[in-house]
């Protein structure tokens, strides 16, 4: 009996570990011809582009709000956030719904790619010499084989 309890405990422990394995996982997506990565722990779901209700008095990059199964969620066009040009939404345009500090937000991106493991040792700090505006929202660069993914600092992205 005691043995079994202990086993159960171990199993529980393992489940906790599973939770932790979200660490180092990134959802990658395409935006302005670059591959970006976003820590998977922030992502709640990915949906196709849908009807957006415009809202006044918000920055240009906040496109408005959507109805996600009865919840009203604001959406941000990440292109506009980076100061890039507007691009017509198409069937590959996606909204990545994230949750940061308890607040939901939809991120409009050109295309969602895949989920990747990027271990810590493969992440370099964002080079500071680049002075482009988007650099403000990059927390590091992840090396995946030959490619480099720009890792988003989600919290900064949502700051005013």
């Amino acid at each position: 009996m005691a043995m079994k309890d202990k086993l159960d405990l171990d199993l529980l422990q393992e489940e906790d570990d599973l939770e932790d394995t979200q660490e180092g996982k990134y959802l990658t997506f395409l935006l302005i011809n670059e591959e970006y990565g976003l820590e998977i722990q922030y992502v709640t779901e990915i949906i196709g582009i849908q009807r957006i209700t415009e809202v006044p008095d918000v920055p240009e990059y906040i496109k408005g709000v959507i109805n996600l199964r009865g919840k009203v969620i604001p959406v941000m066009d990440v292109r506009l956030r980076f100061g890039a040009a507007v691009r017509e939404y198409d069937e590959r345009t996606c909204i990545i719904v994230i949750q940061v500090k308890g607040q939901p937000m939809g991120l409009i991106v050109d295309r969602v790619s895949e989920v990747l493991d990027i271990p810590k040792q493969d992440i370099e700090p964002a080079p500071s010499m680049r002075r482009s505006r988007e650099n403000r929202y990059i927390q590091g660069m992840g090396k995946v084989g030959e490619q480099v993914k720009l890792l988003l600092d989600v919290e900064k992205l949502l700051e005013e």
Partner: protein
Amino acid sequence: MGEDQERIEMIGDFVAESRELLEEIEPQIIAMEEHVSHAGMVDDEILNSIFRLFHSIKGMASFLDLQTVINVTHEAETLLDIFRKGKASLAPGHIELLYKTGDFIKGLLNTIEQQLSDGGLENEARGIIGEIQQTIQGIAAKADPAEEPEEQSPPDPAAWIFTITPEMIKRFIEDGWEILEEAETSLLQLENKPNHYPLLEQIFRSFHSFKGNAGFLGFSDLEQVSHGAENTLNEMLEGQVTVNNEAISELLKTIDSLRDRLGKVVVPYEQKIAKEDDLVGEQAESSSLLEQQQVLVEAERLPTNGNVTGGADPNKNVTNNIQQAIRVDVEKLDTLLDLVGEMVISAAMVSHNPDLQGLQLDRFEKAISHLNKITRDIQDVSMSLRMVPLAGIFRKMVRVVRDVSNKMHKKATLEIIGEDTEVDKTIIEQISDPLVHIMRNAVDHGLESPEQRRAVGKPETGRVILEARHTGGEVWILIRDDGKGLNRERILNKAIERGLLLNERQDLKDEEVWKLIFEPGLTTVAEISAISGRGVGMDVVRQNIEKLRGRIEIRSTPGQGTLFIIRIPLTLAIIEGMVVRVGKAMYTFPIASIKECFQPKGSQIVVNPDGLEVVNIRGELLPVIRLHQLYKVQPTFEGLTEGILIVMESEDQKCCLFVDELIGQQQIVIKPLPPALGNIRGVSGMAILGDGEVSMILDIANLMVSTEDLLGIKTE
């Protein structure tokens, strides 16, 4: 078992009914007090009704053989009877005693609810009974030697086997705050009449019962500290120590220290007292605040831990049976309400489904109208589950105003309007604190002393008005006083002194200046009083209200008074809304705020030289707000005669909104504005329409203010 069960039920009924009666007693006592101070005599009717209330409690108690309750209510009756028969006139001390008696019975009821008897409380009851008897003796002036209030033999401790339950500790904490508060009040009174023997005795008893409780539950440090105070008081009573300012200050310090310690008492099995961080932060600064947070914590804990509490004490389980209610986890309730909201939307989506258009579906129509009806009923019922009238909290404010005005030597009346207004339970929990603060401030800082009021030609008695109402999708709680108003200069100077403002910012608007009082550490009162003025409080008020996604506004006119408006959106509410279209955008208005809709004729419209359009409706001239200009969208119609004008009314303002067309009336589920969007002019929430689209709900009052900015019209 059957018999036991019956008694349990009877006791449950007794407790519930007595509580109601006690709630009635308090306003009556206040009414009586007012009557005495105005007319200089007791109103027989009020006196009789108070008498009857105590009498009913006594009657019920004797049926159940609750001896302590009987004894206490009996003494109260005897006391009241003296006044009824006109043998003596009512003095403030007597009123105080009646309050105390009421409070004591409240405490008894709590215990009875838990242990199903009032045994074990005889000792405590002796204190209050003795007090009443003494008063009676004092009045009667014909001492009855038989009724000596000397201690009788205490009950054999072994006869009562006590296990210390978390409830007892919780009660001890609650009572502790009360006792300390009482002791403090009395000490402050003692300062003015140092030779007032009964007062001194009362304080002695306070410390004594605090010590007793602490000792009983094994809080030895609390016991020791209060024991020290008790000794000092005893020496005072025996004349060995003179009662002077210093001695009183010393005792007040002891109270502070006891409060400090009491604040750190941890109720076992709970994850400590929640929000301890907050507590520690403010502990040193305001003990009265602490007390309120304590209450708040209790309130928050109850709904979720109801089951845990029940399990910890076997008696409690029994008590749960007698209540004709089930405790439900608030989270479950919230989920249910969310689902109901979704169901309303889904039902609308089915009945307004575009696929059905143009089809002749008689049986379907019948079925769907039935579905809609049931949906609406379910929604009404589930909404009411969480709604509680504000009356409970509002009534408490009567006491707050009374206590503060007494303590601060001010005269004040409190008027309550709209106490039936129902609000969500979370609002009740969160609003209590801020309300107490604002009420205290209104009396303490807002109202002038009677002398000052007379000097400026106001009636000596200040007025405080507490009002609640639903406005649009919000609940408004308004607190008005007719005092001296906020002092602009003083606030500005203080803010500069505190480094909140730079010197050059003297050109701030009044509203911006008033907002400064919510900054931590800003107090404009030169001297810190026992009640308010320590600069904590207003920032906490704002925090609590912001937790409810609410706002607080201040309007103040020097010499005339201050108005606080607490505006809280309804968490989940379903309202009748009118959906309108402007270009591609859909907006929703609460039906309640729409007066009429019409298509204007050219002759009705006048344009001011400054470009303001005014429409003449049966002789009434109203400004036109073009919604498309306000929100910068492309409208279908530019000409006023092509679209629709909606006449809106809010507060005492009216205006016309210009839109393209009316889409129709719908049940609207109000969803909160996502915080990430910040404040949007004129928008109080979001609605999901029948077709699944999101629409902004426009709040008329806000809209008018923002349009005034837009059009450059000066308010007032």
